[in-house]
């Protein structure tokens, strides 16, 4: 008990220390979080009428963000597979970075759902035995179960590893390896269940397609690793944490394949809709071409398409994959592209035209945008704090002091430019 408290107290001291860049970043996030919180208070007082959602389009920006973040959460952990297969070094280090990202993403998912529901204070109705969770009938009930399991699993693994390293003990791999392996199917499960949530509705032909799950997984394998790669590059540049070039290359390559599958599945879907040309085509038409003069989503989806295809080539061609600048551009393109495609591009057309074929054009209100921004800031804040603790621990810069009570902090600054040792920023020369 005492040890846990000392560890916790030590991390509090640690996160209060850092370079100027670190302080600015944290302050910036806190301001955004405060803005988001005040938007939420406004929404609680007035009701969801302050959003642009209405009966016709009953889910909007919040649920779009939720859906996208589930993908990020899932894929962050799935990167453990290549790390393991290709032996990129101690698997636990990759696992920890990925799992902490998953934790932050799940926190965002839960927040996005919370702000979307009309009566968040009735959350206890969802607790089995105490409330009345409609399990196994409702896919949303499944989602509650798998998301929380996944959160607990990832927290357990990462805290266990970090806690032991802090006390200079080698974490018992007989304990954590099975858990890490278990987190892989459960990563797949969260994304599958989330896809089923849409998939299982006969009322919405746009979602009622059997390739929705593979499409979800393929796009998650793009967006999650894109974010991880950006983090890898940042962490490598601004902290002492080392990540091999080879690992980064492999991730980029995997993303190219995943993007190919993603585009292929999308093409299959488009073929089916356009060639059969039933009334179910309407939603696809609305998304890609506009319908009866309504075309709010058209510019977005084409932006996403261009981003995704460009990124695919950037990752496919070895020269651009090895160049750090094009690599970063590719990652950003993928992240934004999938964010549009699997967020608004997936959720909104399900409602347009609505079940009685009315067209209500939706675009998020100011409150929705501010609130969503606040949640993104919260997610980044959580991830920053987790990395602030995890990276020094993994670098052996933060551990228990020799007296066994206090803590030793070897990394006061956290975010500062590191001297490149073996030219990680090498520019391509042929």
């Amino acid at each position, binding site marked *: 008990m005492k040890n846990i408290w000392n560890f916790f107290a030590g991390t509090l001291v640690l996160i209060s220390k850092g370079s100027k860049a670190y302080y600015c970043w944290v302050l910036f996030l806190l301001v955004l979080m405060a803005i988001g919180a005040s938007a939420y208070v406004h929404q609680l007082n007035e*009701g969801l009428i302050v959003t642009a959602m209405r009966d*016709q389009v*009953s889910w909007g920006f919040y649920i779009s963000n939720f859906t996208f973040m589930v993908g990020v959460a899932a894929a962050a952990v799935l990167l453990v597979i290549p790390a393991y297969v290709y032996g990129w070094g101690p698997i636990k280090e990759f696992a920890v970075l990925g799992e902490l990202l998953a934790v932050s993403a799940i926190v965002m998912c839960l927040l996005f759902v919370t702000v979307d529901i*009309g009566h968040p204070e009735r959350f206890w109705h969802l607790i089995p035995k105490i409330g009345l969770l409609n399990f196994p*009938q409702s896919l949303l009930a499944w989602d509650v179960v798998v998301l929380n399991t996944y959160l607990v699993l990832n927290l357990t693994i990462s805290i266990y590893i970090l806690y032991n390293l802090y006390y200079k003990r080698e974490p018992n791999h007989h304990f954590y390896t099975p858990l890490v392996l278990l987190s892989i199917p459960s990563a797949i499960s969260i994304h599958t269940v989330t896809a089923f949530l849409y998939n299982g509705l*006969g009322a919405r032909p746009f979602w009622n397609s059997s390739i929705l799950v593979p499409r979800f997984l393929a796009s998650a394998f793009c967006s999650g690793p894109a974010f991880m790669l950006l983090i890898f590059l940042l962490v490598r540049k601004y902290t002492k944490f080392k990540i091999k070039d080879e690992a980064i290359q492999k991730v980029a390559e995997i993303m190219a394949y995943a993007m190919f599958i993603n585009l292929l599945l999308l093409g299959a879907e488009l073929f089916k809709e356009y060639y059969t040309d039933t009334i179910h085509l309407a939603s696809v038409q609305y998304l890609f071409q506009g319908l009866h003069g309504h075309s709010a989503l058209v510019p977005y989806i084409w932006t996403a398409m261009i981003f995704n295809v460009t990124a695919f080539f950037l990752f496919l061609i070895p020269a651009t994959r090895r160049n750090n600048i094009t690599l970063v551009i590719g990652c950003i393109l993928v992240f934004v592209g999938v964010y549009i495609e699997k967020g608004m591009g997936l959720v909104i057309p399900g409602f347009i*035209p609505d*079940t*009685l*074929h009315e067209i209500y054009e939706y675009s998020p209100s100011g409150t929705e945008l501010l609130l969503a921004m606040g949640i993104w800031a919260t997610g980044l804040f959580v991830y920053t704090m987790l990395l602030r603790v995890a990276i020094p621990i993994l670098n052996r810069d933060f551990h228990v002091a020799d007296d066994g009570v206090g803590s030793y902090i070897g990394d006061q600054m956290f975010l500062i430019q590191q001297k490149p040792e073996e030219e990680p920023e090498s520019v391509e020369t042929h």
Partner: protein
Amino acid sequence: MSDTTKNEYIQHKSRRKFLKGLAAGVGLIAMPGKDASASVWEEFFQKHFRELSKDELKVVIGRLEKEYSKKFAKQVTVKTTPPIEGVLYGYGLDLSRCIGCRRCVYACVKENNQSRDPQIHWIRVLQLDKEKGVDLSHAEHYYNPEKVPEKGHFYMPVQCQQCEKPPCTKVCPVQATWKENDGIVVVDYNWCIGCRYCMAACPYGARHFNWGKPGLPVAEMNPVTHYLGNRPRPKGVVEKCTFCIQRTREQPGRYPACEEICPVGARKFGNLLDPNSEIRYLIENKRVFKLKDDLNTQPKFFYFYAT
């Protein structure tokens, strides 16, 4: 859902313990205003409608009646009349008669205490082209001519179809909406968390959300209410047509407000289990169709052409 499933859900003991603990914990942190506090907490910890014992139900109804009577300055009753044995309600709508006057829409709003502002309508009347037939993709939702019916058009009112296999209840994560034994799909407004999954699942646009605080003028409030039907709703929950549960479950029963008001007799209502009922006659003798039959939701709302 049946009684067997209902019993499985009853776990009074563990729940009470938890709720007591939670109440103590939460109570310490934030106490609402002095006089309001008791009923606010009671409301917060209120159990699912179908899990309330007789005594608990009495307390809940007492609380609600007091609250509504005070708010609307009249004696408001909240009934909990159960389904009648041997009754399964069915609705018929004669497309050859309907003239699209929307009287049913407004009679429903009045009877069922829908919010006037923001506006909620449980019935949507679609204007369709005679040339195209029942083709929703060409429906006009907001037709507004001087006079109806308009030449070349016919009209199709859509409301909750009280599906025998309702996709809306299947998806609700907290069982806040369910099908009663008389076939009416209801919502417990005190249990609904407002996630709107049911709205995504309903193929008929029949479920409506209280996006803002319902605006129900005191003078126009209908004080004869049912817990599962037309009692005033809070913001942030879903609501829908209940075949006027507060009327149709009475003995002697009354017709739903929409069927009563229809000036051309396009609306028929009755017991599907009674072989002599008008609705059974219509189904057996007229050309009847169900909306989106292919989805296998098995509506108990039948469209037909009498002439």
